[in-house]
């Protein structure tokens, strides 16, 4: 086997080695059945046990209150954008939704929602190139709105909400795709918290929504059953043939988080990893230009540039040669992006920090 690289891709992303090894170990023979977990019925007792375990571990790790339901659907965060609006837009008669524009995916979410009602952009950091989370005055929020949507971590630009806003009684909907399970979160602050699985919860093709019970039952008539929160949660997310591999991998990842000490330990580890990388960048202020305003930095996605595009390209290529894989920034943004999700070991962040120093010394 080739040497395993430190994989900084934004998602699908690096998984913990013990998770992959476990998946390999039981790949041909799950639970002693003589068949793989991807070859058995989603309705078999063996697979239902996997789903129940994912629900149980999510509840335990995220401390999900009893009045919240879990709905797992096909597609990633992008289908999640439509699900939010299809399920919630009609919650209040005005069919109005408030969106905070803090990055590319926030905009995508708002565009989808506008198909089903009135979308109001109540704050935007676009004028400053999405380098921060825009300020929000809770007192001005329209109480007739069905919900307020935020992107808790902005994957492409590398910013995050450090704390979550008070919403004046409007249900808060959070897209936590690129940071779920990276820190403890007070679920009770949210009406809906949702996330594509392919960063911190396993592999792609799955999205998970945590929905407060009283928000169920308002889906528009055209909503397909497979993306209806109420239907999914009633069916334990087995409304149709589920993405069995992604659900199985989510179970392995959740087990790994639990045996690693839960979200408090993961949180501390992520703090150390992000500090290593940001401190390295900040040691060379004349050379590297981190994109995010320091007070709004994401701990999952670190975005930065060198003085020139040619040096950016050299950074990516030389990093790759040293086993630091996929450091290239998003095609809309350029520069570099180091995604350091839960699956990235501390040694990976340390190796990147060392390379950041070394590259600046050689080219600075």
């Amino acid at each position, binding site marked *: 086997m080739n040497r395993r690289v430190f994989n900084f891709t934004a998602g699908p992303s690096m998984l913990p080695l013990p998770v992959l090894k476990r998946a390999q170990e039981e790949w041909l023979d799950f639970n002693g059945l003589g*068949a793989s977990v991807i070859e058995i019925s989603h309705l078999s007792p063996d697979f239902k046990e996997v789903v129940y375990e994912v629900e149980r571990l999510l509840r335990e790790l995220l401390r999900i209150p009893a009045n919240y339901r879990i709905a797992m659907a096909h597609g990633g965060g992008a289908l999640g954008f439509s699900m939010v609006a299809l399920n919630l837009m009609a919650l209040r008669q005005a069919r109005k939704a408030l969106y905070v524009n803090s990055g590319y995916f926030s905009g995508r979410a708002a565009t989808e929602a506008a198909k089903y009602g009135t979308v109001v952009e109540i704050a935007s950091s676009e004028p400053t190139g999405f380098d921060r989370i825009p300020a929000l005055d809770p007192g001005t929020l329209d109480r007739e709105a069905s919900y307020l949507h935020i992107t808790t971590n902005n994957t492409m630009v590398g910013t995050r909400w450090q704390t979550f806003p008070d919403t004046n009684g409007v249900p808060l909907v959070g897209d936590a795709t690129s940071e779920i399970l990276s820190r403890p979160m007070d679920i009770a602050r949210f009406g809906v918290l949702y996330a594509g699985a392919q960063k911190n919860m396993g592999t792609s093709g799955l999205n998970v929504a945590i929905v407060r019970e009283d928000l169920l039952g308002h889906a528009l008539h055209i909503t397909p059953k497979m993306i209806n929160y109420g239907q999914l949660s009633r069916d334990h997310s087995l409304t149709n043939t589920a993405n069995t591999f992604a659900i199985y991998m989510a179970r392995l990842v959740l087990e790994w988080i639990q045996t690693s000490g839960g979200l408090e330990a993961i949180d501390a580890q992520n703090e150390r990893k992000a500090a290593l990388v940001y401190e390295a960048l900040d040691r060379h202020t004349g050379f590297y230009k981190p994109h995010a305003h320091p007070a709004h930095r994401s701990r999952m996605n670190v975005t930065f540039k060198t003085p020139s595009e040619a040096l950016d390209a050299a950074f990516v290529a030389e990093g790759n040669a040293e086993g630091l894989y996929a450091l290239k920034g998003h095609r809309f943004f350029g520069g570099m992006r180091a995604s350091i999700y839960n699956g990235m070991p501390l040694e990976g962040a340390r190796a990147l920090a060392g390379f950041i120093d070394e590259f600046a010394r050689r080219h600075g």
Partner: protein
Amino acid sequence: MSTSPAKIRPVAGKARPAPGGRVYNFNAGPSMLPLSVMEEARAALLDFAGLGAGVVEISHRSKEFLALVEESFVLLRELLAIPANYRILLAHGGGQLQMSMVPFNLIAYRPARKALYVDSGLFAARAFEIGARYGYARVIAQSRDDDYAYVPACDRSWLDPEASYLYIATNNTVMGTRFQQFPDTGDLPLVGDMTSEILSRRFDVSRFGVIFAGAQKNLAPAGLAVVLIREDLLGHALPETPRILNYAELAKDSHSLANTPTTLSLYMMCLLLRWVKQEGGLPEMERRAERRSRLLYDAIDRSGGFYRGYAQPAHRATMNVTFTLRDEALLERFLAEADRAGMYALKGHAARGGVRASIYNSMPSEGVQLLAGFMTDFQRRAG
């Protein structure tokens, strides 16, 4: 940091007759995959294409992953002889999300917003109910009154020229029936749900406006659907269609990657398509499917009524063989003994009961021989 160790203990007293010490898996889907494909995928979980990263850990936009998608498109075109004016689309979910995507995308193809359905089984009926949410859906032929034992005839004179499409399920997974021939619909786009039989028989793609298939039977693990669509049918979606469910949006990207796809399924589809080609393509898949299903149907027909096939003989599927026992009190024993002998998941669908042997492309003929032999032996002992 570690996960709890895997506990792989063969279930006591159960035979493992299939290659690799596995069982013959007759599940209706997700279904059995070829051992060689499974073994290659296992290695790729940790290291794909020499990258030092697993296939489910890399970007769907990386050149290594895009190459897989490109190869899959070439193989699909070649194996199914897809004409140049058809696009191949990749969608999330399985066949059932397509039951919504078809009306979202096609019911407004003609201004009357009418859709015609043939009610030939459980999933066809479900598709009709869903279609009715988006426009005027009508059943033009049905076999529901006869417990779906056959595929109803579909006379061309019943077709409404104002309709946007006619929807059929070409193979009825739960009932074990299939369209032996496809209706001629003239200018009316024919939509075919081929989830449970794609790549198992030769057919003329150009007879259809849209063909879709959930991947989890003959294409790949679950979570993916493949759609073949004639180009002129793109661009008629209802304005409220979610972007990820809009065929025209899926067609915009040359790799049909409108967002992060389910990468494991796409990767394994590529492996499976290579396998189908290497084994001899569709002519060989069709020949094997005929042979496998004949073995089981012969066992039913020779049993003197001990086994009773659900499907009328002229309408029998080659992918799903459904039957029960004359003495239904013996059913549980039949299923339990088969399971112990290494034939897994033979229990029929909850709505139908009895026995269902799903014998997709990946089922080796030895698995079917084992089952046919078991049926004869069981009858001798219990009959």
